[in-house]
C-alpha cells in the first residue's frame, strides 16, 4: 500500500517536528491514541508558535471536522448497534475512506477497516523513528521535511480531481482559503473553504459523481467502471 508507506514518512516528519516542541513521550502518546495526521500537525503548529492548549485543540477539531461528513456518508453502509457503528467510525482515515467508496453513496466498511489497519503500526513506528531522528536533526527544514505534509495532501487530492465538479470545487476552495488566510485565525480558512462543497446542494447531482443514481431515469455510461454490487435496491 503506497499510502501506508507515505503515512510512515509523514509519521517520521511528525516525530521530527513534534519532539522539540512536545517531548518524546507526549509525541508518541498522541500518535498512538489520536491517529489523525492533519489534526496532529495542526495542533503541533499552534503549540510551536506558542499558542495555548485551547487554540491547539480548536485547530485540530476544525481539521478533523471532515470526519463528521465522511462519517455521515459512511453511516448508511454500516450495520449493527451504536457501539459497533462508533467503532467503525474510529477506523476512518482519509485514504482508506476514499478507497472504500463504492459510488452512489455506498461504502464497504470492512474494506475500509482492512485498509486502515496497516496504517496504524506504520504511523506509530514512523513517529518513533522521527522522535529518534529529531534528537539528531537540528533543522528539519533543511531536509525539506515540512514539504512532506502538503505533498501528501496533494497526492490525496489528485484522486479527487477526476470529475469536473471535483476540479471546480477544489479550485474554488483553494482560492477561498488563500483569500481568507491573511485575515482569519489559523485553521479557519481550511474549514471555511470546505463549505464550497455545499454548492452541490443547489444544483442537480453530477452524473459522474453518482453514476448509479436514477437521475433523469436512464443508466449512465460510467456504470461499467464500477464493481458489481449485489445489494442494489430496486426502484419501486
Amino acid at each position: 500500500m503506497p499510502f501506508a508507506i507515505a503515512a510512515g514518512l509523514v509519521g517520521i516528519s511528525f516525530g521530527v517536528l513534534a519532539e522539540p516542541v512536545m517531548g518524546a513521550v507526549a509525541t508518541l502518546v498522541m500518535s498512538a491514541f489520536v491517529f489523525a495526521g492533519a489534526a496532529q500537525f495542526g495542533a503541533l503548529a499552534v503549540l510551536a508558535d506558542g499558542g495555548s492548549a485551547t487554540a491547539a485543540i480548536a485547530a485540530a477539531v476544525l481539521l478533523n471536522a471532515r470526519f463528521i461528513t465522511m462519517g455521515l456518508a459512511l453511516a448508511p453502509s454500516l450495520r449493527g448497534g451504536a457501539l459497533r457503528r462508533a467503532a467503525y467510525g474510529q477506523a476512518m482515515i482519509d485514504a482508506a475512506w476514499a478507497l472504500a467508496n463504492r459510488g452512489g453513496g455506498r461504502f464497504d466498511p470492512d474494506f475500509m477497516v482492512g485498509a486502515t489497519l496497516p496504517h496504524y503500526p506504520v504511523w506509530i513506528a514512523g513517529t518513533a523513528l522521527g522522535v529518534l531522528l529529531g534528537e539528531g536533526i537540528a533543522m528539519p527544514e533543511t531536509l525539506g521535511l515540512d514539504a512532506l505534509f502538503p505533498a501528501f495532501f496533494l497526492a490525496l487530492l489528485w484522486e479527487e480531481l477526476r470529475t469536473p465538479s471535483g476540479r471546480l470545487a477544489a479550485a474554488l476552495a483553494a482560492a477561498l482559503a488563500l483569500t481568507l488566510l491573511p485575515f482569519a485565525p489559523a485553521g479557519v480558512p481550511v474549514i471555511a473553504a470546505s463549505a464550497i462543497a455545499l454548492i452541490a446542494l443547489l444544483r442537480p447531482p453530477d452524473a459522474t459523481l453518482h453514476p448509479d443514481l436514477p437521475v433523469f431515469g436512464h443508466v449512465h455510461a460510467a456504470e461499467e467502471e464500477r464493481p458489481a454490487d449485489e445489494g442494489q435496491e430496486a426502484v419501486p
Partner: protein
Amino acid sequence: MTQVWITVAGLIATTAAIKASGPLALGGRRLGPRPLAAIALFAPTLLAALVVTETLGNGSELVIDERALGIGSAAVALWRGASVLPAVALAAVITALARAVV
C-alpha cells in the same frame, strides 16, 4: 508541558467523538442525492485548501518559497503518472535542494 498534555488529552477525546458522530447520527437511513453530492465534494475542497495553505502559508502571510517549488515538482510528477511515494519524496528532495542552493 501542562499545555502539551492538555492538548494531547483534548485531541484524543475530540477526535474519537468526531469520528463516532457521523455513524451514530443517521442510523440506517439513506441520504438524498444532493446531500451525498455535497459530501462527496468535502474531500476535494478540504484537501485543496490544505495543499495551498500548507504550501503558501507562513503564519498569516502568503509566501512563495522553496516549498512551492517542491510541491510544484510533486504536482508535475503526479500529472506524469507518478505514484504517491515518489511524488511525496520528490517534494522533500526538491525543497531541501532549493534551500541548500539559496
